[in-house]
C-alpha cells in the first residue's frame, strides 16, 4: 500500500502538468455529477419534515371532462372530494388534507412593521404525517378549528420577527387585521419541501365540507386542497392504489347520465410527484429517468476519454519501468492491477476534491441551483437548503462509485495495453 502511494507521488512529481490536469478533470466531472444528483435528491430523498417520503402517496389534480370532449376543467380538490375519495381508507396509516398552495398574508404586532408570509391551512393529521420539529408549544387539533381567536403554528423565523423570541406559544398577533394566537413554533422548513413548507399553518374550517355539498355536481369537487397518504409500509403502494381504484369506481358512478365524467390520474408516489405533472397530465417517470441517465453518461464519458488519453501518455513514459517489472517476473495481471490501483488513487483524490467542490458550490449557490416547489406565491425567501440536506452518505457513496467508474473507463484500456508490453522491446525502448 505504502509502495502504491509512493509510486503515485513520484509519478505526480515527474509529470506535474499531466497529474494536475487529471485531478482537475476528475474533480470537475464528479462535481457536476454530484450537483445533478443533489438536485434529484432534494426532490425525492427523505428529509425532515418529509422523512417518510418513501411511504407517501400524493393526490394528483382533479379533472372533469364533458362526454362530447368540448369542455374540460381541471383543478385541485374540494374537501368533499378528498373526503369521498380518500377518507377512512383501510390500507394507509394516515391521510392528511391541506391547502395545496399558499396564501400570502400580512402579519403584524404592535411595534413591528407588517410583513408578508406564506400561509397554509391543514387538518390535524398534517402534524403526524410530516415530522416538523416543535421548538415551543404543540400542534393544533381538530377541536381548535372553531376556537376564537384562531390558533396557528408559525416558524421560528416568523416568531423571532414578530416577538423577538422563538418561545412565543400563547402570544397573539394580527394576520390581515385578524387576531390570531400562536399554539406552536416549528423550525423553519425549506421551500424545496413541496407539501410541508409554509411559514404559518392554521386549521381548516371543517364547515367548508358542508358548503361543498350544497354546490352542483359539476363544481362541488373542485377546490384548492390536496391529500398526502402515509402508508404503513412502502410495499403497500399497490394495495393502496387498488383500494383507491375501487373507491373511484363508486365515486364515478354519480356522474353517469350527467354528460360529464371524472378523468384523473389517481395517486402519485414520490418520484412521480417530483415531476410536478399538471392537473391533467400523467408523469413520465421512465422518460425522465432516461434523460438523467443520458446526462450522467455524457458527464462521465467526456472526461473519461480525456483522462484515458492522459493515462495513456503517462504510461508511455513508464514503458521502460513496466518492462523491467515484467522481466523480473511480474505477471500481466499484477501490472494491470498495479496501474489501475495507482490510477484509482488519483481518481479518488479528484473525486474527493470534486465532492467538496460540489458541496460548497451547492451550499453557496443553493438559490440558483435548487427549485422551490412551484415557486409561485413565495415571497423572496431564501431556500435554506441545509448542510444535512446536501451531505448524505448515499451521495458520498455515489461520488465514490462515479469515481470508480470514471477510473475504469479512463484507465482500463491504457492499463490493459501497458500490461501487454513485450519486456524486451520495452527495455530496449523500441516504441511501437
Amino acid at each position, binding site marked *: 500500500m505504502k509502495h502504491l502511494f509512493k509510486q503515485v507521488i513520484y509519478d505526480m512529481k515527474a*509529470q506535474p*502538468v*499531466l497529474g494536475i*490536469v*487529471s485531478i*482537475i*478533470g476528475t474533480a*470537475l*466531472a464528479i462535481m*457536476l455529477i454530484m450537483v445533478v444528483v443533489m438536485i434529484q435528491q432534494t426532490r425525492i430523498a427523505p428529509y425532515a419534515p418529509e422523512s417518510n417520503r418513501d411511504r407517501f402517496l400524493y393526490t394528483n389534480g382533479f379533472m372533469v371532462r*364533458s362526454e*362530447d*370532449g*368540448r*369542455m*374540460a*376543467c381541471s383543478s385541485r380538490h374540494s374537501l368533499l372530494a378528498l373526503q369521498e375519495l380518500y377518507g377512512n381508507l383501510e390500507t394507509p396509516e394516515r391521510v392528511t388534507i391541506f391547502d395545496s398552495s399558499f396564501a*400570502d*398574508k*400580512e402579519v403584524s404586532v404592535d411595534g413591528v412593521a407588517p410583513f*408578508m408570509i406564506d400561509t397554509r391551512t391543514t387538518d390535524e393529521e398534517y402534524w403526524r404525517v410530516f415530522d416538523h420539529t416543535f421548538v415551543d408549544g404543540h400542534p393544533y387539533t381538530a377541536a381548535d378549528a372553531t376556537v*376564537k381567536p384562531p390558533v396557528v403554528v408559525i416558524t421560528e423565523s416568523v416568531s423571532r420577527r414578530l416577538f423577538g423570541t422563538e418561545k412565543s406559544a400563547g402570544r397573539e398577533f394580527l394576520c*390581515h*387585521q*385578524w387576531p390570531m394566537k400562536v399554539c406552536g413554533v416549528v423550525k423553519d422548513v425549506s421551500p424545496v419541501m413541496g407539501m410541508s413548507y409554509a411559514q404559518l399553518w392554521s386549521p381548516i374550517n371543517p364547515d367548508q365540507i358542508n358548503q361543498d355539498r350544497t354546490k352542483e355536481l*359539476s363544481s362541488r369537487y373542485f377546490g384548492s386542497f390536496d391529500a398526502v397518504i402515509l402508508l404503513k409500509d412502502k410495499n403497500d403502494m399497490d394495495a393502496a392504489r387498488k383500494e383507491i381504484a375501487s373507491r373511484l369506481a363508486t365515486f364515478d358512478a354519480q356522474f353517469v347520465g350527467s*354528460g360529464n365524467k371524472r378523468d384523473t390520474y389517481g395517486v402519485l408516489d414520490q418520484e412521480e410527484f417530483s415531476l410536478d405533472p399538471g392537473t391533467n397530465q400523467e408523469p413520465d417517470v421512465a422518460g425522465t429517468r432516461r*434523460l438523467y441517465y443520458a446526462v450522467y453518461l*455524457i*458527464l462521465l*464519458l*467526456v*472526461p473519461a*476519454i*480525456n483522462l*484515458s*488519453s*492522459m493515462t*495513456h*501518455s*503517462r504510461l*508511455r513514459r513508464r514503458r521502460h519501468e513496466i518492462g523491467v517489472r515484467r522481466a523480473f517476473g511480474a505477471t500481466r495481471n499484477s501490472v494491470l492491477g498495479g496501474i489501475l490501483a495507482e490510477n484509482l488513487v488519483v481518481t479518488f483524490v479528484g473525486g474527493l476534491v470534486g465532492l467538496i467542490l460540489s458541496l460548497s458550490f451547492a451550499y453557496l449557490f443553493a438559490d*440558483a*441551483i435548487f*427549485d422551490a416547489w*412551484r*415557486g*409561485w406565491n*413565495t415571497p423572496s425567501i431564501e431556500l435554506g437548503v441545509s448542510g444535512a440536506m446536501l451531505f448524505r452518505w448515499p451521495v458520498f457513496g455515489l461520488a465514490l462509485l462515479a469515481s470508480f467508474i470514471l477510473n475504469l473507463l479512463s484507465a482500463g484500456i491504457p492499463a490493459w495495453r501497458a500490461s501487454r508490453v513485450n519486456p524486451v522491446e520495452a527495455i530496449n525502448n523500441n516504441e511501437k
Partner: protein
Amino acid sequence: MNGKLFTQMKNEWKSNVGLAVELFIVSVVLWFIADTLYGSLVYKVEPTGSDIEHVYQLKVDFLGEDHPRYVENSSSADDLRELLARLRRHPGIEAAAVAQVGAAPYSRSGSWSGVEVLVAPGDTAVFGVNGELSIRTVTITPEFPRVFRMKGVRGETPEQLGEIIARGEVIAGVNIHTSVDSAHAGGNALDFIGKPYLRYNYDGSIAHLRLGALVEDVKRSDYEPLAVSGYLAWPMQESDDDAMDGYNEILIRVTEAADGREFVKNFRENMATEFSIGNLYVNDLVSMASIRGSYLAERDKIVMRLILVVGFLLVNVFLGLLGTFWFRTRRRTSEIAVRMVNGATRGSIFRRLVSEGMILLLIVTPLAILTDWLIRYNNLVISNEHDYFSYGRLWFCIGVVFALMALMIVAGTCLPALAATKVQPAIALHDE
C-alpha cells in the same frame, strides 16, 4: 509541409482518435444545448403582446361572516364598482380592469377551450383541432387592453379595443387562424372579423359573440412560443353581477410619472382605509415585473444549468488538449529542435502545433453536422424549444459551437506550443 503534418498526425493516431471522439461527442452535445438555448432566445425576443411596465396586480379578498367588521347584506358587485371608481380617482392610476385569474401574463392558472366560428351559414370552422382544448380563453373588462397596452393588428388603439369589449364583442390573437380546422386553414385571419363565434359553456349552453378585432398575440410568458398560445378574450362588463367572484382579479396601470417606491408605499399605507368597501378589501399589490421575475426564475434556472454544462464540456476540451499536447510536445522536443535548426521560425512551430488540433476539429465537424441533422430529421428532441426547424438555425448553432470549440482548442494547445517554441536547439540536440 501539409503533407508532412498529416503523416505526423497519422503516426499519432492513437491519441488523436481519442481526442477526435471527444471532440465529436462534445460538439454534438453542445449543438443540442445551443439549439435549446436558441429556441428559448427566439421566444424570449418575440413580442409578448402586452406591456407590463407600471402594471400592478391587486390581491382582493372578502371578509368572512365571522369577522368583527363583516357587513350583512352587502353586494359584492356594488362594492366592486365602488372600488374601481376609487382606484380611478387615486392619484397616478391610469386604468383599472377586472379579469379572470390567468388573463394577465405570467400566471399558472388559465383556461383553454375549443371554440367555433360561423364562417358562412351552416359552415363552421373549428378552432382547436377536433374540439380539443387548445385556445387560451380569458375574460376581461373594457379597460384591460388599456392596462396592458394591447394593440390591434389593424391599428386599433387600446381605447378602441376597450370599446369593442364594451360592445360585447370578442378579441382574438392574430395567430388564432393557424389552429383553424383543415377545411379553413390558410385563410386570412382578418376574414374572420365580424363573424360570430360560438363558445360552449361548461353548463352546456352556447354563447354567440361577434369577433370585433384581432390583436397581436398575447403570450403567457416570455419563453412560450407565440403560435401555441392562441388567444381569445371574452367580454365581461363591470356591471355584471358576477364580475367579482373568486376567480377574478383586479389589474391597474400607473402613469409613468407617478410609478415608483413612493406610489407603492403610499398605496399600501392607505389601502386599509381607502380600498376597503363593505366586505371587499385590497390585501396587497404586486408589480407585474416581480410576478414575471418569479415566474421566469424556474426557466432561467434551467438556462443557467445548461450554460453550466456548456462550461464544463468546454473546460474538458481545454484540459484534454492541454494534457495531450503537453505530453506530445515534450516527446517531440528533438524533432522541434531539428526543424528550428533547419530554419523554422518560432511562429511557424507554434502555428503547426495549433493547426494539429484545428485539423482534428475540421475532420470531426462534418460527422457532427451529419449527426446534428439526423437528430433534427428524426425529431429526437425533447421540448418545444426545438420547434420551428430551419437550416438557418441549424447552421447558426453549428457555427457558434464550432467557434467555441476552436477557441478552446487554440487555448488548450497554446500553452504547450508556446513552451515548445522556447526549445533551445543546441541543448535539445545535445545527445545527437
